[in-house]
């Protein structure tokens, strides 16, 4: 009797969770398989009917259009593969500069939102609320059409020290010219960086052993700035600048930053910084006030408290959402297509797609590139996050 009572109750096979699990999964798998098959066969028929070539052969064809910002040499007779590369580099350029500037601005605004100064706190709050509640595309168009479009022509351009000029043709900055001995300056800079790292390691060991502190920051600053400066003077200053000069109706010389880049960068930086500011604020608020008080009671001053106690703990909260903001900025840079900045999306999924009509290949490649950038950045930040994560028992 007792053994009978403990026997598992008999259920119909269609009520058995294991059978149900297998059945549902099989059904899902078959549906997805069928959809995939339908897509592929439809695509084959449609492509044949529309006489569109397939495959990646188009990458070797001549592009035949010009691009107004190229980081590598490019002419109209180059191939679509080259176009892809030019676009990718332009995307990475705006993403990297944008991430650096947005981080700086975001941290400044985030800390300003926590400032004891009432007025500053309110201004930072208003900035965050205003920027976060307006679409990014709206802001890109605003900067490009309204602000940069309203700039005067080259003859009336705004200038800074007669070296930097801002007009509706873009931003003109001096171009550095490197002389013969400049390589020694670079070597000195590298030596300064290596020496700083060595000093830091030594100072840390000494502090752990004896408790004596060493001014690492000032030493490192002196090494990194001082050594190249000495090298520069010793080699007879082999560095010059070619300033842009107005000739006729436009500037010659210097480096021209196209207005599309300026507008896109301004919009991306101000937009992302508003989100980063909120992340920073939340991160700092997440560190309980007891930590600050404990640090004060140990005799630490405000600076070291922030640097040694609050920020390391806040970073744990800040890093994961910060990563997704970096990814957002990179993905949002594809909105460049709306104002004609030649990023990957504009030149490849835009112009190249129009010219060749090979939608499947081009959109798949474009998506794959963004996917790879996303996954790579997440992997990098996950590694960093794991490094600084709280080690629990």
């Amino acid at each position, binding site marked *: 009797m007792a053994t009978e009572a403990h026997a598992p109750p008999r259920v119909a096979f269609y009520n058995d969770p294991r059978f149900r*699990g297998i059945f*549902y*999964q099989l059904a*899902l*798998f078959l549906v*997805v398989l069928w959809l995939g098959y*339908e*897509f592929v066969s*439809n*695509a084959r*028929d*449609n*492509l044949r*009917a529309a006489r569109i070539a397939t495959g990646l052969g188009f990458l070797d064809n001549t592009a035949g259009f010009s691009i107004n910002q190229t980081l590598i040499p490019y002419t109209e007779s180059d191939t679509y593969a080259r176009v892809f590369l030019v676009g990718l580099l332009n995307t990475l350029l705006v993403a990297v500069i944008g991430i650096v500037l947005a981080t700086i601005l975001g941290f400044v605004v985030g800390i300003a939102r926590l*400032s*004891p*100064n*009432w*007025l*500053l706190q309110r*201004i930072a709050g208003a900035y965050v*609320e*205003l920027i*976060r*509640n*307006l*679409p*990014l*595309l*709206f802001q890109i*168009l*605003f900067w490009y*059409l*309204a602000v940069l*479009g*309203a700039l005067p022509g080259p003859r009336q351009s705004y200038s800074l020290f007669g070296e930097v000029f801002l007009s509706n043709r873009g931003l003109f900055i001096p171009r550095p010219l490197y002389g013969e001995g400049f390589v020694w300056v670079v070597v000195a800079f590298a030596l300064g960086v290596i020496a700083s790292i060595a000093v830091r390691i030594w100072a840390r060991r000494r502090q752990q052993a004896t408790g004596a502190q060493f001014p690492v920051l000032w030493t490192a600053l002196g090494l990194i700035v001082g050594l190249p400066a000495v090298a520069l003077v010793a080699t007879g200053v082999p560095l010059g600048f070619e300033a842009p000069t107005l000739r006729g109706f436009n500037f010659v010389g210097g480096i021209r930053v196209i207005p599309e880049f300026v507008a896109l960068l301004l919009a991306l930086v101000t937009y992302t910084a508003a989100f980063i500011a909120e992340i920073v604020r939340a991160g700092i608020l997440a560190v309980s006030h007891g930590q600050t008080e404990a640090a004060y009671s140990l005799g630490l001053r405000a600076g070291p408290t922030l640097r040694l106690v609050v920020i390391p703990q806040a970073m744990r909260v800040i890093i994961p959402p910060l990563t997704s903001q970096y990814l957002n900025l990179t*993905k*949002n840079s*594809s*909105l460049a*297509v*709306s104002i004609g900045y030649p990023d990957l*999306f504009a030149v490849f*999924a835009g112009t190249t*797609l129009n010219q060749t009509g090979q*939608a*499947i290949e081009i*959109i798949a490649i*474009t*998506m794959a590139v*963004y*996917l790879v950038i*996303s*996954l790579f950045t997440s992997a990098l930040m996950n590694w960093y996050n794991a490094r600084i994560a709280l080690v629990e028992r």
Partner: protein
Amino acid sequence: MTEETVTIPTSGGALAPTLRPPAATVGALGWVRANLFNGWFNTLLTLLSLYLVWLIVPPLVKFLIVDAVWTGTSREDCLAEKVGRPVGACWPFVRAKFTQLVYGFYPWDQHWRVDLTFALGAALLVPLLIPRVPYKALNAVLFFGVFPVVAFVLLVGGVFGLQHVETRAWGGLLVTLVVAVTGIVVSLPLGILLALGRRSRLPIVRTFSVIFIEFWRGVPLITVLFFATYMLPLFLPNTWTIDGLLRALVGVALFSAAYMAEVVRGGLQAIPRGQNEGAMALGLGYWKMMGLIVLPQALKVVIPGIVNNFIGLFKDTTLVMIVSIFDFLGQLRAAFADPNWSTPSTLFTGFAFAGIVYFIFCFGMSRYSLFVERRLATGYRR
């Protein structure tokens, strides 16, 4: 025990009169000193902030209100040379383009259908948002189930004697709201399903969900819209012709569903396992456990995240402009191209107007989410 005598210092036998605190530490002056001018650094910050405010606010007020032109019929009325004074915002431009910004190219004599849809939506949405109004379940069914159908029939037409209006004629705020509302209504259930799939114990279901979510989250929305516009027609039988707006809607819905799934997953993870186990012990099946026990708690936790997603979705609707669907921003850009209204202040006026409209929608949503959050934070508040 004997009590110690306390001697109070007195002047001539009587208590000294209570002095008022120093004027510089109380009232408005005290507040200003304590908050704005305590220490040289804070003073410097205050002065810089004041300079910033002075730099931004007076010109803005001057442009938008003081110097603005309020009435007029053409660009002539907004040109400084013609008016004879500095000209700020050119509001007649907004008035002239207003119908285009709201209805797009929807036929003039059919505008009442759009108005009726807006009115119906507002009439159903407002009571849904006010907690005190009764019949919430009926209201929700009407808004999420019946209203989309009615709105579809009203806007598209072709039945009940209503003239058929192609979606290509739609535009402006109408398209913005159609895309946003469809995205919201579709992405929430789809996102919940995906989140459940990602937390499922069935390996194939989980794998598909993870791939789906990570794929859409890894690519920019604009590539998704291009995918939906140029690639989707190739994948479907060539006898099917899908409307351009519908394609964009599919793209937006799939994209936002992936983001919604991650928000919901966060909520599911915040619910202790004991809740699942308790439901199972009561003999509830999977769907009853999720629908009655876990999801109500999980969704409550992530309401701020969901509303943030809605705000993001609303802002992202502007991207349909890039695939040639003229939403609010697209119509604005088209209106800028009108030579009849090209004045130096037209662009700033248009952006100011559009900015105010977008801000009202997004800011309203975020304030409402704060309100709901505070109302629902019952279980965790001490």
